[in-house]
C-alpha cells in the first residue's frame, strides 16, 4: 500500500469498504461455484437464478451507495456570506411546521446549514439530509443515496438469508457427500453468512424503523426528537414512499457552470416610486446606502423572523444579532433578538460574535439605517407611521428612537416626554426596555447598560439624545447634575459608564453649596427654605401634584420621629454621595418602593424621602430606597412615575425620566441605579432620615417652604420642591 504520509490518501479508510467488498463478492462467488451447481441439479435451477438476481441487486445498490454523491453542498461563495463573516450568530432558528429548528453556521462551508444538513468530518462536506458516514461503503449517506443504502441493506439481508438458507438446504439434504470440498466450502460460506447476518439484519431493522418514522440516523442518534415531535415526518406511508419512490435528487457538485448569456446593460428600467418609499427616503436623510446594506444584512434576520412568525417582520437588528463571543451579553442579545424577531421562545442560546469594527463605523448612521429599514419594510404598520412623522425631526433624533431602544428607553422612552417621538419610541422602547433592563442588571447605569448591550453606536446616539433632550428641557441655568447623570459629559460613549461617578462629583459640588443649609438639620421639617432648585416643577401635571400632596399628608405625621432616627443612622451601604439634585431621587425611590429585595439596606432602613423644594407645585415625591414602605407609598411612587409619563412640563422631564426609569429597571438594576442616583443625588447622611422600622412611612419630609427632603436608605437624601 502506498505511503499515506504526504498525500491525503489514507489507506485506513478503505479497509472497511474493501473488507466488505471482499466478503460479499468472495462469499457469493464461492456459493455460486460450489453450492449452486448441486442445488440446481438436485433441487431446482431457479435457485441460482434467484440468488443471482438478488446478488446483482445487492451489488448495484452497494455501488450506488458507494459512488453516488450523497448531496454535498458546494461551498458558499464569498459574496454570499461577506456580511455574515464574524458578526453572524452561530445559530439561526427557523420554524418548521410549528417547531423551532436550529440552523447552525458552518464555518467550513460558509453558510447556515439547512435543516437536516450536517457536516461530515470524514468527507469535510456539508451533506443534505445527512444520515451518517458509512465506513462500509466509505461514503456519506445523505439525501441522494439514502435510498440506495437502504435498499442495499434490505437486499443484503435477503441475500445473506438466501445464501445461508440454501447452503443449509444443501448440507441438510446431503446432496453430495458430506466430506467433499463442496460441502466444506458451503459450510464456510454459511458461517460467514451467519456471522454477518446478525449485524446486517440489526442495521436493516434499525433503518426500517427510521424510514417509517421519517428520521435520519443522525437525528436518531443525537436524540433530536427524543421527547418531541419530528417536523420532518409526513406519516409512515408518505415517509416510505418519499424514500423509495421519489425522483432522485440532483447533484450540486460537478455541474457544468451555466454560461450567462443574458445582457445586462443600462439604461435600467426603474419601477415607480410609491409614497411609502418616499417617506422612507425623507427619513433616510442621505443615509440610504447604509440603509440598504443593513437591510440586506438583515435579510437573514428578516427571513428568520418571517418563518418564525406570522406577524409583520420586526425591525432588522443586525447589530444585535451579530455579536458573538461576549457571553455576558448572551442573554441580552438573545432577548433583544427574540423580542425583535418576535419569537415566542428562542430555543437556542444564540451566540453572538463580537463585532468591534461595527462601533467604529458610523454608529448613529447605522442605527437610523436599521430603523428606516424597518420603516421602509413595514410601511403599513402603525408604529412606523408615528416614526415617519417623527422622522421629520432631525434624523439623529428620530432614527435612534427605534433602534437603540434598549438604552434609550430607560432614559427617555418612558418619560412624559418632551419629544413627540416618544409615542413611537415609547411603545417600541418598552418592548426592548423590558427585555434589556433585566439582562443588564449588573450594569451600573442605564447608559452603560446601553453601551454594553448593543453596539457602541447606539450608545453614542443615546448620549447625544440624552443631552439634547435634557438641554432642551431644562432651564438653562440649572441641572448640571442632571445632565451629568443622564447625558453625561458629551464625550465618548464608553465613558457613559462612568457618568454616575462623574455626576456624583458634580453632585458633590452642589451639595457642598447646599450643605450648609442642612447641616445639623435633624428634621427635614425644620429645614430652611431652599433656593429654587435647578429643576422647575412648575409645570408638573396635576396628577403628579395631587399625588405628591397626598403623600405629603400621609407622611408628615410619622415622619418627624422617624427622621431623627434616620439622621442618626449610619449610611448602611448605598453610599449617598452628596448631591442636591431633586428629581433624580424621586425616581429612584419611587422604584425602590416597588422592589424590596434590593439589599439589606432598603429593607432595614427605608428612608423617608425628602422633598427639598418649597415651591408650590409639589415636586415628585421620592421614594427612598427603603422598600418597606406602606403599600400606599409604592403605589404612590408608581403612580408618580407613571403619571409623570403624561405629557408634562419640560421642567419636570428630567425627574420624570428618572422616575420613569425606575420601573424599567430590573431588581438587579435597581441597586446600581440607586447607587448611581444616590451618588448623584444623595444628601449627606445626616440629612437622610431612615425610618425606624419597616412599617414606617419613609416618605414625606414635611415641607418647609415647599422643600421636601427624602432620605433613602443609606443616607441618600433627595430634595423635592413642593
Amino acid at each position, binding site marked *: 500500500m502506498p505511503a499515506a504520509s504526504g498525500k491525503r490518501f489514507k489507506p485506513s479508510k478503505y479497509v472497511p469498504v474493501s473488507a466488505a467488498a471482499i466478503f460479499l463478492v468472495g462469499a457469493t462467488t464461492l456459493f455460486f461455484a460450489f453450492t449452486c451447481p448441486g442445488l440446481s441439479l438436485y433441487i431446482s435451477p431457479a435457485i441460482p437464478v434467484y440468488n443471482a438476481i438478488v446478488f446483482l441487486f445487492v451489488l448495484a445498490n452497494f455501488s*450506488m451507495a458507494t459512488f453516488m454523491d450523497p448531496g454535498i453542498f458546494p461551498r458558499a461563495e464569498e459574496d454570499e456570506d461577506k456580511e455574515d463573516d464574524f458578526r453572524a450568530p452561530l445559530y439561526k432558528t427557523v420554524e*418548521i411546521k410549528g417547531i423551532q429548528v436550529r440552523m447552525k453556521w458552518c464555518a467550513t462551508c460558509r453558510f447556515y446549514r439547512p435543516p437536516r444538513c450536517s457536516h461530515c468530518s470524514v468527507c469535510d462536506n456539508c451533506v443534505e439530509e445527512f444520515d451518517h458516514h458509512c465506513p462500509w461503503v466509505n461514503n456519506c449517506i445523505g439525501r441522494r443515496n439514502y435510498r440506495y443504502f437502504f435498499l442495499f441493506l434490505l437486499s443484503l439481508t435477503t441475500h445473506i438469508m438466501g445464501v445461508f438458507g440454501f447452503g443449509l438446504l444443501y448440507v441438510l439434504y446431503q446432496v453430495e457427500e458430506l466430506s467433499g470440498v463442496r460441502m466444506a466450502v458451503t459450510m464456510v460460506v454459511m458461517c460467514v453468512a451467519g456471522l454477518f447476518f446478525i449485524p446486517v439484519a440489526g442495521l436493516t431493522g434499525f433503518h426500517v424503523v427510521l424510514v417509517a418514522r421519517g428520521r435520519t440516523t443522525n437525528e436518531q442518534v443525537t436524540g433530536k426528537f427524543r421527547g418531541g415531535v419530528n417536523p420532518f415526518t409526513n406519516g409512515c406511508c408518505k415517509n416510505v414512499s418519499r424514500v423509495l*419512490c421519489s*425522483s432522485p435528487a440532483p447533484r450540486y457538485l460537478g455541474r457544468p457552470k451555466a454560461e*450567462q448569456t*443574458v445582457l445586462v446593460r443600462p439604461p*435600467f428600467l426603474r*419601477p415607480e416610486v410609491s409614497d411609502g418609499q418616499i417617506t422612507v427616503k425623507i427619513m433616510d436623510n442621505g443615509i*440610504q446606502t447604509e440603509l440598504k446594506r443593513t437591510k440586506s444584512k438583515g435579510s437573514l434576520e428578516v427571513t428568520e423572523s418571517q418563518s418564525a412568525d406570522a406577524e409583520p417582520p420586526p425591525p432588522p437588528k443586525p447589530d444585535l444579532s451579530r455579536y458573538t463571543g461576549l457571553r455576558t451579553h448572551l442573554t441580552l442579545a438573545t432577548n433583544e433578538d427574540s423580542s425583535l424577531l418576535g419569537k415566542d421562545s428562542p430555543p437556542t442560546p444564540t451566540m453572538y460574535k463580537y463585532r468591534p469594527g461595527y462601533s467604529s463605523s458610523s454608529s448613529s448612521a*447605522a442605527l437610523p439605517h436599521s430603523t428606516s429599514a424597518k420603516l421602509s419594510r413595514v410601511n403599513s404598520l402603525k408604529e412606523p407611521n408615528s416614526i415617519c412623522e417623527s422622522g421629520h425631526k432631525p434624523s439623529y433624533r428620530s432614527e435612534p428612537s427605534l433602534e437603540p431602544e434598549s438604552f434609550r428607553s430607560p432614559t427617555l422612552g418612558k418619560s412624559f416626554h418632551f419629544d413627540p417621538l416618544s409615542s413611537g419610541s415609547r411603545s417600541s422602547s418598552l418592548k426592548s426596555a423590558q427585555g434589556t433592563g433585566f439582562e443588564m442588571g449588573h450594569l451600573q447605569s442605564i447608559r452603560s447598560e446601553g453601551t454594553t448591550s448593543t453596539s457602541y453606536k447606539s450608545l453614542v446616539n443615546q448620549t447625544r439624545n440624552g443631552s439634547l433632550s435634557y438641554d432642551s428641557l431644562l432651564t438653562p441655568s440649572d441641572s448640571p447634575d442632571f445632565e451629568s447623570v443622564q447625558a453625561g459629559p458629551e464625550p465618548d460613549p464608553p465613558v457613559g459608564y462612568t457618568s454616575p461617578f462623574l455626576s456624583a462629583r458634580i453632585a458633590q459640588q452642589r451639595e457642598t453649596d447646599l450643605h450648609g443649609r442642612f447641616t445639623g438639620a435633624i428634621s427635614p421639617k425644620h429645614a430652611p427654605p431652599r433656593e429654587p432648585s435647578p429643576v422647575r416643577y412648575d409645570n408638573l401635571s396635576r396628577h403628579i401634584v395631587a399625588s405628591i400632596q397626598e403623600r405629603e399628608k400621609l407622611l408628615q405625621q410619622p415622619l418627624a420621629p422617624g427622621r431623627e432616627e434616620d439622621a442618626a443612622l449610619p449610611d448602611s451601604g448605598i453610599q449617598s454621595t452628596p448631591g442636591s439634585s431633586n428629581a433624580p431621587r424621586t425616581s429612584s425611590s419611587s422604584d425602590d418602593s416597588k422592589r424590596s429585595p434590593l439589599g439589606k439596606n432598603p429593607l432595614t432602613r427605608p428612608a423617608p424621602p425628602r422633598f427639598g423644594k418649597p415651591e408650590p407645585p409639589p415636586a415628585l415625591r421620592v421614594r427612598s430606597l427603603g422598600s418597606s414602605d406602606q403599600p400606599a407609598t409604592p403605589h404612590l411612587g408608581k403612580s408618580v412615575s407613571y403619571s409623570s409619563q403624561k405629557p408634562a412640563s419640560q421642567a419636570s422631564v428630567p425627574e420624570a425620566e428618572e422616575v420613569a426609569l425606575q420601573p424599567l429597571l430590573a431588581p438587579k438594576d435597581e441597586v446600581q441605579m440607586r447607587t448611581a442616583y444616590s451618588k448623584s443625588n444623595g444628601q449627606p447622611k445626616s440629612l437622610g432620615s431612615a425610618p425606624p422600622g419597616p412599617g414606617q412611612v419613609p416618605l414625606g419630609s414635611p415641607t418647609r417652604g415647599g422643600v421636601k427632603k427624602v432620605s433613602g436608605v443609606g443616607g441618600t437624601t433627595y430634595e423635592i420642591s413642593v
Partner: protein
Amino acid sequence: CCPQVHSLQELRRSASLATKVFVQRDYSDGTTCQFQTKFPPELESRIERQLFEETVKTLNGFYAEAEKIGGSSYLEGCLACATAYFIFLCMETHYEKVLKKISKYIQEQNEKIYAPRGLLLTDPLERGMRVIEISIYEDRCSSGSSSSGSSSSSSGGGGGGAGGR
C-alpha cells in the same frame, strides 16, 4: 442589426455589479424546496414587487413538481431498480427534467424582466438550492445612484457622517 452575445465581462464596461441579494429558502414546510416570496428591501427601487413574487412563486411551483411523488416517479424508480440503475446512464430523471425547465425559465425571466432592470437571477442549483441569488447591477456611467441601495462602503461612509451629528 444582428444581436451579439456579449460576455458579461464585456458588459461590465457599462454596468457594474453593485451588490447581491439572496433570497433564502422557506423551510416552513419542511425540507421541500421552496423559496421565500418576501420582497427583499434592496429591490425596492429596482423591480416591481409583484414581478418578483411571481418569479419566486413560479420557481416554487417548479420545485414542487420536481419533488412530487407520484406514479411517474414510482415507475421511474422501479425501472431503475430493474435495470440495476443502468437506466440512469441513458435517461435523465424526472427531477433533472424539471431542473432544465427551471433553468430555461430563469433565463427567460432574466432576459425579459430582470436584465432590463439591471438585475440578474442566478439558478439556485448553483448554490446548492439554498438561495436565489439576485445580482444588482449599477449603471457605472451614472453617478452612483443611491436608489439602488448600493452597499458600497463609500456610500456607507457618507451615511455615517450624516448620522445625528
